[in-house]
């Protein structure tokens, strides 16, 4: 039986505490949704009470609406999928006016993922989002091209990463999560850069750049040629990266990459994740995040673990 935020009772004894802290905010449980796989929350509300989630993370927003890449935009690959959506979104303003009121009605933490083409755009988007009522945290996506620096990715050059995170940090007092790109040599270094620039938490991993070819037509399967790989195929890479970041920074680490079941999620928590996000899993079944939540509870009860804190980073080496 559930009484209040994340606390589970058996008789009168407190048994399991699912709540976790991410910087200044507390989530009632560690289950979040990964940006771009949960829309703005409304479609999923048809299948379950999204208020049960630890946090809803919405599709990445930019200052102005963005139309995205031409189709085909997705293709299934072994144990995963490639996408080249191209960050299509309705823009910060329309989100605040048309989507946020719906999310506010639910008893969950609202995390808004955002990005920009330039540092100025990041700052402006962060300011607009920070002034809206009902947003609890911002997640900045730095896996997107930097218009000023010849479209290289913000999140792969430590100097540029430091600059953009610093700038956003100064423009918002909201909890700031920096979402790291896995397309780097040393992800722990990037986590450290984000921490030093004032991030309250890091989340990882974003998709891994990939490509697939139709051998009959000899054409790329995506119109954009390259795309981002997600799903179970990337999970071992993600778990490794979460573990490296957990060992490198003091701020909380949010883990994602191929989580479909509770077992997958627990792997990340043991490797050091304070919270986890379900991404491509939401496409496998819209109930994936609820299955993960219920499964984590069951795992903890079966294993006699009382709190996520007890489980987090409990990896035994050697």
């Amino acid at each position, binding site marked *: 039986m559930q009484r209040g935020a994340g606390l589970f009772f058996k008789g009168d004894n407190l048994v399991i505490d699912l709540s976790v802290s991410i910087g200044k905010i507390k989530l009632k449980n560690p289950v979040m949704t990964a940006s*771009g*796989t*949960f*829309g703005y929350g409304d*479609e*999923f509300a*048809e*299948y379950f009470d999204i208020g049960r989630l630890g946090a809803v993370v919405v*599709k990445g927003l930019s200052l102005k609406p963005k*139309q*995205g890449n*031409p*189709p*085909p*935009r*997705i*293709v*299934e690959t*072994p*144990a*995963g*999928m490639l*996408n080249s*959506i191209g960050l*299509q979104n309705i823009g910060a303003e329309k989100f605040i006016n048309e989507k946020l009121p719906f999310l506010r009605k639910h008893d969950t933490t609202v995390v808004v993922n955002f990005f920009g083409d330039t540092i100025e755009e990041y700052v402006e988007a962060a300011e607009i989002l920070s002034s809206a009522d009902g947003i609890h945290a911002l997640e900045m996506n730095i896996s997107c091209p930097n218009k000023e620096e010849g479209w290289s990715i913000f999140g792969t050059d430590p100097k540029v990463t430091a600059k953009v995170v610093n700038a956003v940090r100064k423009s918002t007092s909201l909890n700031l999560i920096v979402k790291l790109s896995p397309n780097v040599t040393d992800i722990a270094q990037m986590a450290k850069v984000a921490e030093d620039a004032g991030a309250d938490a890091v989340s990882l991993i974003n998709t891994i750049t990939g490509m697939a070819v139709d051998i009959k037509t000899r054409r790329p399967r995506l119109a954009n040629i390259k795309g981002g790989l997600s*799903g*179970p195929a990337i999970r071992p890479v993600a778990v490794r990266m979460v573990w490296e970041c957990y060992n490198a920074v003091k701020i909380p680490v949010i883990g994602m990459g191929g989580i*479909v079941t509770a077992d997958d999620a627990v792997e990340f928590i043991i490797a050091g994740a304070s919270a986890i996000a379900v991404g*491509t899993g*939401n*496409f*496998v*079944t*819209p*109930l994936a995040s609820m299955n993960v939540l219920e499964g984590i509870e069951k795992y903890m009860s079966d294993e006699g673990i009382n709190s996520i804190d007890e489980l987090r980073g409990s990896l035994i080496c050697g």
Partner: protein
Amino acid sequence: MSEIFRAKIKENRPLTNHHYLLTLHPLINIALPNPGQFFMLSVDESLDPLLKRPFSVHRTVEGGFQILYRVVGKATKILSAKSPGDEIEALGPLGNGFPLNISNSENVILTAGGMGIAPMLALADKIAGLKPLLFYGARTAGELLCLDDFRDSGIEPIISTDDGTCGRKGSVIDSLESYISSAGSNNFGLYACGPKPMLSSLSKFCAKHEITAYMALEESMACGIGTCLGCVVKTNEGYKRVCKEGPVFSSREIIW
């Protein structure tokens, strides 16, 4: 309202070497699907294939609905090996479906190419009273499906095949062209489903003859419920989601 539900396979009947008729009985009450709507089916408990696959509702039947499918790859191959009594997970009904009250509904033409025949029977069942004509094209005679089902509804398919093994040799648009010129009128409402090149030519044909046309499109899908933005098609109002704003669009909207 769509639902995520489990359904029991009532029948999975081969119609040709690579076409099957699947009858599903949902284990919960679901909304009655409209013609042109679709379901996302999970063909196996394992995560391989990972994503659900979209299939149009072919017909609603006592206790459930039918899917008419062609084996083209991994998921459809697995599905074809399923037996009565097996259960699968499904999501739906999804999408908008065909608009049923179009202005010139006294003269209705259904146009299907290849697997595009799948949603047409559901539509024919619904509007049989309007005595629609069906123009049906396939590669070869052996790929023509459900002819008797249409005949039972009083619709005699006007057939064309690429190789001329049944009906007129040529495309379904050739057949339409000669019909329209002999009918001497363009006061038709047209519904279509088929491969993209066919729909694209048909769209030009309809524009030329000023015919109102509604077309069911296909795109690769991940979620089926409007969240991944993977299934978009270019329209004169920007990209639209085939799973949400579609799969049926007015032919005038689409930028081919």
